[in-house]
């Protein structure tokens, strides 16, 4: 009897597993290029490919895939075929670190694009730095990643192999504060964050600048990103008399938060950072989100002449997901690695040297080209030299550009 039920369970499991494979329509990506002799250079990708932040993560993966295909098509580096290996970090620092070790142990990997989350980056930096493997993040905005824990007082670069094409919170937070105070004319803010590296960092740089400008912070809250009942917080916001809410965090929480604040009877706009700038936010926040604002890094892709080619190629690539908030940055990140590989190979008479990883890392420091998001180059900390930001607002169920600007200090 016992054995029979065991067989039944096994059969059920087997059937389940079979259906799973049959229904697995997710493409694993990176199968596009076949190497016919020559050297293969793998560019790793680490991003959340499952879970809440899937929409953004898949945009990053697809954009790197596109960069790799373009490089192969245009034969950017003679004799080198680029490939992509995409790993899922589920937005978890622990998974990120495992992925980092995995990428390091693959000898064909000469550069990595990712991760999305600043907290994940913290867990990966050392692994990559020890292996001298270059990592270019399209999305990390926490200042400590490049400038050290004491970045407000003395900047120290912790890891020579870490670069990013996204601007930092040290710029984004104050940029948002200046817009809210000077342009939107809001003086009383309620600041909420999700206690993650990214959200808390953004909320604190925003608060500082807002107070400096003369605004009042009428309340602060930290939410728990695992729950979605924010009614107690929403009631507090309503009773605080705030005329605007600043949220440091990501869209899966920002959407319901905005919705519940408005439902509680407080008709004030919510302002978020680049991680809120996603079409899903509007879906989650509902029609009441009209007028909510975000700041995001760079200028809008559809307005940059340099992005036209990317947009056309992305469309032609037939990806089923949008390129998202960081697609352009991911493409530029991958392209900076490709440029560095080209330089190293050219300097070594057409072959990869034995210490290629270290050489490529050094070469990324000096890249300079016109990318999708504008001029791509890195300063002495590994931060992008592009300091452009844009304010977007929800207008009739879609993100509309309000204005672009370059941040130049407080």
């Amino acid at each position: 009897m016992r054995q029979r039920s065991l067989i039944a369970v096994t059969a059920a499991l087997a059937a389940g597993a079979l259906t799973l494979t049959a229904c697995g329509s997710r493409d694993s990506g990176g199968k596009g290029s076949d190497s016919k002799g020559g050297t293969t250079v793998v560019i790793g990708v680490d991003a959340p490919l499952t879970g809440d932040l899937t929409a953004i993560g898949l945009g990053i993966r697809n954009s790197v895939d596109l960069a790799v295909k373009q490089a192969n098509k245009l034969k950017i580096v003679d004799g080198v075929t680029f490939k992509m290996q995409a790993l899922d970090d589920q937005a978890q620092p622990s998974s990120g670190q495992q992925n980092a070790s995995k990428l390091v142990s693959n000898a064909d990997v000469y550069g990595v694009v990712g991760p999305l989350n600043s907290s994940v980056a913290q867990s990966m930096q050392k692994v990559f730095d020890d292996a001298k493997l270059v990592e270019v993040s399209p999305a990390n905005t926490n200042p400590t990643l490049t400038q050290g824990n004491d970045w407000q007082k003395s900047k120290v670069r912790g890891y020579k192999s870490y670069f990013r094409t996204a601007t930092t919170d040290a710029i984004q937070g104050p940029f948002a504060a200046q817009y809210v105070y000077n342009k939107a004319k809001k003086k009383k803010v309620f600041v909420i964050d999700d206690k993650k590296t990214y959200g808390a960092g953004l909320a604190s740089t925003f608060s500082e600048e807002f107070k400096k400008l003369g605004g009042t912070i009428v309340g602060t809250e930290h939410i728990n990103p695992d729950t979605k009942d924010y009614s107690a917080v929403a009631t507090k916001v309503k009773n605080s008399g705030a005329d605007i809410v600043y949220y440091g965090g990501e869209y899966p929480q920002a959407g319901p938060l905005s919705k519940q604040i408005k439902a509680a009877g407080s008709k004030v706009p919510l302002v978020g950072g680049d991680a809120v700038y996603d079409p899903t936010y509007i879906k989650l926040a509902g029609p009441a989100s009209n007028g909510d604002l975000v700041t995001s890094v760079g200028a809008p892709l559809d307005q940059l002449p340099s992005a036209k080619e990317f947009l056309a190629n992305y469309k032609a690539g037939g990806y089923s997901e949008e390129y998202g908030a960081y697609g352009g940055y991911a493409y530029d990140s991958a392209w900076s690695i490709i440029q560095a590989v080209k330089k190293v190979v050219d300097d070594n008479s057409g072959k990869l040297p034995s210490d290629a990883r270290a050489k490529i890392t050094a070469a990324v420091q000096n890249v300079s080209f016109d990318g999708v998001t504008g001029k791509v180059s890195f300063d002495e900390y590994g931060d992008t030299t592009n300091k452009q930001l844009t304010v977007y607002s929800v207008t009739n169920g879609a993100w509309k550009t309000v204005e672009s600007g370059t941040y130049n200090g407080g």
Partner: protein
Amino acid sequence: MNELPQQLVNGLLLGSMYGLVAIGYTMVYGIVQLINFAHGEIFMTGAFGALTVYAYVLPDGTSMWIALPLMLIGGILVAVLVAVGAERFAYRPLRNAPRLAPLITAIGLSLALQQAVWAWYPDAKSARTFPQIGGGPFHIGNVTIQTGDIFLLIAAPVSMAFLAYFVMRTRTGRGMQATAQDPDTAKLMGVNTDRIIVIAFALGAAFAAVGGVADGLKYGQIDFRMGFILGLKAFTAAVLGGIGNIYGAMIGGVVLGIAETLATAYIADLPGMEKFGTQSWADVWAFVLLILVLLFRPQGLLGERVADRA
């Protein structure tokens, strides 16, 4: 202090949701002493079942007044099927195994259900929007109640009353009480205990599905992980109220919900406590309350009176 009534209502709503799900934990525990950790996922499948009816069965633009009862039926149907299937294929073979085996099975089942919805339900990789009831909000004094919350305010007490009637007055209900008290003797007395256990799973699942629909209406979105944290909270509510006691589950839920809300709203205002009063600390305070209750009343708020447990 004028936000107190609103915060109490917020807490009551949150707590009713916990209570609806907690009933499933407490009934199953009362009868087979199993902590069914997959119950949070049953709640989730109930919500997805209701969404399926709305999005794929009914024609577009069906009025919510017609759609809601059908969604409820669909949600309950799916949740009950999943729960009964789980009982039949995952728990029954382990009925006489050591206590830890079904517990681990439950955790595995919980993950399997999450991943199954993630993998197979259309567009469930990120949150899906749930239909909303139009109109509202309603204002009573300075308390605002959303239209979506009305359903929960009605459904929770009605479910509770139905359950009380069922357990106390019907033949099957009395069979449940007997099985809870002593399964072997109940069997000797002619109670079909296998059937009773299936009914306990099914009833718990039905209430979880009602909770799932209420959750969707309240927050406007559902996702494959919605059951995890809520299941954990509901389990806590069941323990707080006295696991095995069906009234305790509801009361434990409401107490837990109100405690969390008030902790968010007021602890930060106490001198020197600003750091510990934000919403991310609410769970900590909820568990402090749980520990305090269990210190003084190890059997939970209502305790487990054997005669009532089912």
